[in-house]
């Protein structure tokens, strides 16, 4: 089932045409990787889905992005609702300078008036279990989140995100600041999470895309060159440019 569909999506930063006629379809409960060299527009595409590009002055989009049949580029879209549904994990682990507990309940606290302590405790427990951190952290929930290791921080950020109960997880190079072992464990977590969520990951690490994703899109200079099953993209690319990129002729 297609969760997100883009139709003739174009985006400009002022005069710069950053996304050109993107037509794609992202499936629910699968991991879709978007790969491509730096500056190809992959992060920009990711940030269309939760409208984070709105924060930048002079951005203009046209075309359609349908999430469950609703065009989110519509000016009436409630960004608060959209962003609760489509969450984002960033390149650098970025917990707030609060305790582990407070990080996870942050969104719940500002959205829900008078949520009971029991309810919050429950959210913390489920979210941390969801990212396989509960056993390690259950006795130090009140310690500052900034004391954790990079990997734990990134897991905590994912926990903070799934506490909001999103449908879609957008991951913008989530492992780029982690060491190989931590990367492997976070990838393992992603495979676990795809049972519940639709995951789109942007990465410039091709091996990671090959390891973790079900579908892959290859972007170059703002165009989506090729989109399909990961196996096919990596073993029998249909486009010369995809093949050149994957075999490392440029990148």
């Amino acid at each position, binding site marked *: 089932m297609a969760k997100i569909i883009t139709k003739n999506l174009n985006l400009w930063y002022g005069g710069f045409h950053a996304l050109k006629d993107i037509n794609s379809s992202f499936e629910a409960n699968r991991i879709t990787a978007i790969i491509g060299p730096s500056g190809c527009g992959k992060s920009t595409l990711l940030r269309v889905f939760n409208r984070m590009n709105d924060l930048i002055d002079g951005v203009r989009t046209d075309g359609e992005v349908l999430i469950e049949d609703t065009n989110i580029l519509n000016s009436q879209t409630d960004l*608060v609702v959209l962003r609760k549904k489509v969450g984002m994990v960033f390149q650098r682990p970025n917990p707030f300078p609060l305790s582990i507990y407070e990080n996870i309940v942050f969104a719940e606290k500002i959205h829900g008036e008078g949520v009971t302590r029991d309810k919050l405790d429950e959210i913390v427990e489920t979210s941390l279990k969801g990212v396989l951190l509960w056993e390690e952290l259950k006795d130090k929930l009140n310690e500052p989140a900034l004391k954790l290791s990079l990997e734990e921080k990134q897991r905590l950020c994912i926990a903070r995100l799934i506490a909001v109960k999103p449908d879609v997880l957008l991951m913008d190079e989530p492992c780029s600041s982690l060491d190989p072992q931590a990367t492997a464990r976070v990838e393992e977590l992603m495979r676990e999470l795809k049972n519940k969520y639709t995951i789109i990951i942007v990465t410039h690490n091709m091996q990671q895309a090959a390891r973790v994703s079900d579908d892959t899109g290859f972007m170059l200079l703002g165009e989506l060159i090729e989109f399909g099953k990961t196996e096919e993209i990596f073993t029998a690319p249909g486009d010369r440019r995809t093949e050149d990129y994957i075999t490392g002729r440029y990148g």
Partner: protein
Amino acid sequence: MKNPYRTQNIAFFFLFLATLLIIIPVGLIVVVIIQKGLPAINWQFLSDIPRQGMRAGGILPAIIGTLYLVTGAIIFALPIGLLSAIYLSEYAKDNMLTRIIKLAIVNLAGVPSVVYGLFGLALFVVFLKFGASILSGSLTLGIMILPVIITASSEALESVPYSFREVSLSLGASKWQTTRHIVLPNALPGILTGTILGLGRAAGETAPILFTVAAFYLPQLPKSIFDQAMALPYHLYVISTQVPNVDEKVRYGTALVLLTLVLFMNLVAIIIRYKFRKNKKW
């Protein structure tokens, strides 16, 4: 052959000397004032009204007056300054109006304090008919420290990493919730520091209160914000130049109290900043 280390050492020596010279005036001021003023400090000096034409007794009305003025200035200037800082750093787009506002703030900071005094006289004392009163003086001092508070608060807000705002928004928080729950708490120490430095300045200024509040001599404490009041800097000016035969130690004692008050405020600001730096983790 020239020895490069020798010229370097000579250069270092002069650089160090120039820096060392900064300590001398500060040290001398503090030493002289403590030396000459300390003998005057006793309980009566701090708790009694001035007597014998201000040649004896204490300076309580001036201390209380200054505290009233500083409090009034902060009640007025902190909310306005903080709210405009939030607007400028979080909401304002970079357009003509914003640039004009920022230019106005810079200029406001450069206005000589005596001009604030005249402005306060014209607006608050005469036009709004507040008379020479604590209210007029506080408002005048408040306007004077506004640019300090706005600048310090803007800097504090802008030093909060952009990624915090980004994450908060991406979790579905509105812009205001992000400002209120994430940006503001992390900027608070910087805002407080700026505010206290502004207060220190307000406590020490004479010119803005000259026409708006300061009384030459008042034997009782002010009863309402519409009363005139004595204030430490003006009192110091009066007993130093307007009243003959005031004992030197009374003058220096008054200066010492004023200096202590201002240095104490600065010290609080330094401690807040230090504690925050130590706990700052990003």
